[in-house]
């Protein structure tokens, strides 16, 4: 009796499953078409939800072969969502085959589904393995491509390393490859660099990064508006070429009133300025909201003047050790050449108004930060590794603290400050001369209660 009731129940469930599977297959088909045109996080999420539903339902009705196939698809998509590989480069065939297979399952009679799947189990396994192999063989994350020029191709990218570790890498200049023990390594001559894993920051961080970039653009746009208004140059009017200023007397002689290009331009410029203001405010709000929504920030920890500071990894291009003898200066400002680009260096201690950096006889630890189109190097005292930090707003009684985004508590319980990368990039517009040779020995971590 029980078996009959079970079979009856299974038949009902299978009927529902087939109906739902038909709908999910249509969604899957449409989703695959969309990501073939353009890959977006939303589309990936949509596909993940669909295959997740297929997986759960397959398990529920006792079809593990179908569930395993959905599981392989879900794993592939999840990895793509986490930017561990490029979905654009995914092999379309296994996905299409899987989609067709689900479509065929939905078309089977209830009583035939199990047998039909059993006959094709080996074929389905091949598709699942192809998807799993695609994950393993997938391309390196796009974000690390910026490091590839400096890293030998045959080396692993190191983008999936364990937290707290920074893998040693070859030198920037092929002629002088050296390894770097970034957190505590002994200094040596030449450039040494280490990649920073950057596949762990989530949507919140990406949103913050994007908002930060937009904010900078909006700021530039806002700064540009008064310049445009004050400019003596007038923009070309379509069909009329570049206009010259129209004097009132000349305008009065015109029989047919025409739009004054100067007034037109001033009006447009004012509108542009208002738009820029609004854009700036709105993006600022987005960044604030995104910061509030993002509880964990993957950070590189550095030592500045004996204390811990954190830099969000999402804005770091790489970390390098640079021999002082290899640092020329342009107009008193030191710079370093990486990938053929001269990158200006700023001193973290001087930027934070903490004179008297620890004297450093060896290489300078430099964090190469990246903005939308710029890079700059922040010279710190030491690298301390990586940690996932929860940014904590600074006490409101402090007011605005320059270059500081938030506070945080490290794993060992000691406090740290998260640097504001946007503030840092704004600061590089003002060159800060640096002379470490005259620096004094820095103080160690202070304690609240002095030892007597």
């Amino acid at each position, binding site marked *: 009796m029980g078996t009959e009731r079970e079979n009856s129940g299974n038949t009902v469930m299978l009927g529902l499953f087939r109906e739902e599977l038909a709908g999910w297959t249509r969604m899957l088909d449409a989703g695959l078409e969309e990501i073939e045109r353009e890959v977006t996080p939303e589309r990936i999420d949509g596909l993940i939800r669909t295959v997740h539903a297929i997986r759960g339902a397959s398990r529920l009705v006792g079809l593990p072969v179908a569930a395993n196939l959905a599981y392989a698809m879900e794993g592939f998509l999840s990895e793509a969502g986490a930017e561990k590989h490029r979905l654009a480069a995914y092999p379309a065939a296994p996905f299409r085959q899987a989609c067709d297979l689900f479509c065929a399952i939905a078309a089977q009679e209830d009583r035939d589904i199990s047998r039909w799947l059993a006959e094709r189990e080996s074929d389905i396994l091949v598709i699942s393995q192809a998807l799993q192999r695609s994950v393993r063989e997938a391309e390196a994350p796009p974000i690390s491509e910026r490091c590839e020029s400096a890293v030998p191709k045959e080396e692993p990218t190191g983008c999936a390393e364990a937290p707290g570790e920074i893998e040693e890498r070859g030198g920037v200049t092929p002629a002088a490859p050296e390894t770097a023990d970034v957190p505590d390594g002994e200094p040596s001559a030449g450039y040494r660099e280490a990649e920073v894993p950057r596949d762990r920051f989530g949507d919140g961080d990406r949103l913050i990064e994007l908002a930060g970039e937009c904010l900078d653009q909006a700021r530039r746009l806002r700064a540009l508006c008064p310049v445009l208004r004050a400019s003596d140059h007038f923009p070309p009017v379509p069909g009329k070429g570049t206009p010259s200023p129209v004097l009132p007397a000349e305008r009065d002689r015109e029989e047919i009133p025409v739009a004054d290009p100067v007034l037109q331009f001033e009006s447009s410029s004012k509108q542009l300025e208002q738009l820029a203001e609004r854009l700036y405010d709105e993006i600022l709000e987005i960044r604030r909201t995104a910061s509030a929504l993002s509880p964990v920030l993957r950070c590189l920890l550095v030592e500045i003047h004996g*204390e*811990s500071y954190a830099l969000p990894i999402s804005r770091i291009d790489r970390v390098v050790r640079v021999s002082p003898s290899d640092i020329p200066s342009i107009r008193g400002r030191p710079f370093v050449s990486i990938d053929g680009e001269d990158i200006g260096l700023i001193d973290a201690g001087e930027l*934070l*108004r*903490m004179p008297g950096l620890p004297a450093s006889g060896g290489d300078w630890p430099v964090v190469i930060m990246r903005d939308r189109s710029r890079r700059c190097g922040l010279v710190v005292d030491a690298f301390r590794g990586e940690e996932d930090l929860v940014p*904590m707003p*600074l*006490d409101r*009684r*402090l007011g605005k*603290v*320059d*270059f*500081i985004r938030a*506070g945080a*508590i490290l794993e060992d*319980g*000691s*406090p*740290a*400050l998260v640097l504001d990368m946007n503030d840092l990039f704004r600061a590089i517009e003002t060159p800060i001369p640096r002379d470490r040779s005259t620096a004094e020995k820095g103080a160690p*971590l*202070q*304690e*609240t*209660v*002095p*030892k*007597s």
Partner: protein
Amino acid sequence: MDQKNGDEPLVRCLPEREAPGGVRSEESAPFSPDTSSAGDAVSVVVFRIKREWFALRTGLFYQVADRELLHTIPGKTDRRFRGMVNVGGDLHLCFSLADILEIAEPAGGIPAEENRARLIVAGDEGNRFAFPVDEIMGVQSIFAAELETVSATPAGYGARLCSRILSIEGKRVGLLDGDKLLNALAGSLETDGNGTGK
């Protein structure tokens, strides 16, 4: 007495100070001779900073912790405001009461055996602050009758933050006015990081 020389304890000069006119804080009110009787007891925590003993209303205390690592705040830290500390998973602003109260370093320093340093977190919700002390005597119940008026002799800034003094276990203890202390802490933040006002 010149507190900056550090020759005499701060509290010795307190009986010679005049009481601040027209100001009566919440915690000093119960000890006013005209409003309280000898039976009104108030709980205070007594602690030592360098050679000076102070008491603060127990209700203002939030937590007592061991010494914690301090992180300076660039552009904000000076000799009065030291930075921030992590106490129990929260970041608190840390002040040096020794500098705010202008307590001079005792000649010859403090023997190591007398150093029972702790970190105190006090204040109201949203207005908490931490400060290191060299020793905590404990919680004491004090009565209005035990209190002596602070005299008017100009002394360190600490004397201005004390509403009364009392004797506990043979020690002269200055009763800190909580409101004035909070105001002094807020004032110490309004500096440019070099200890000077903005």
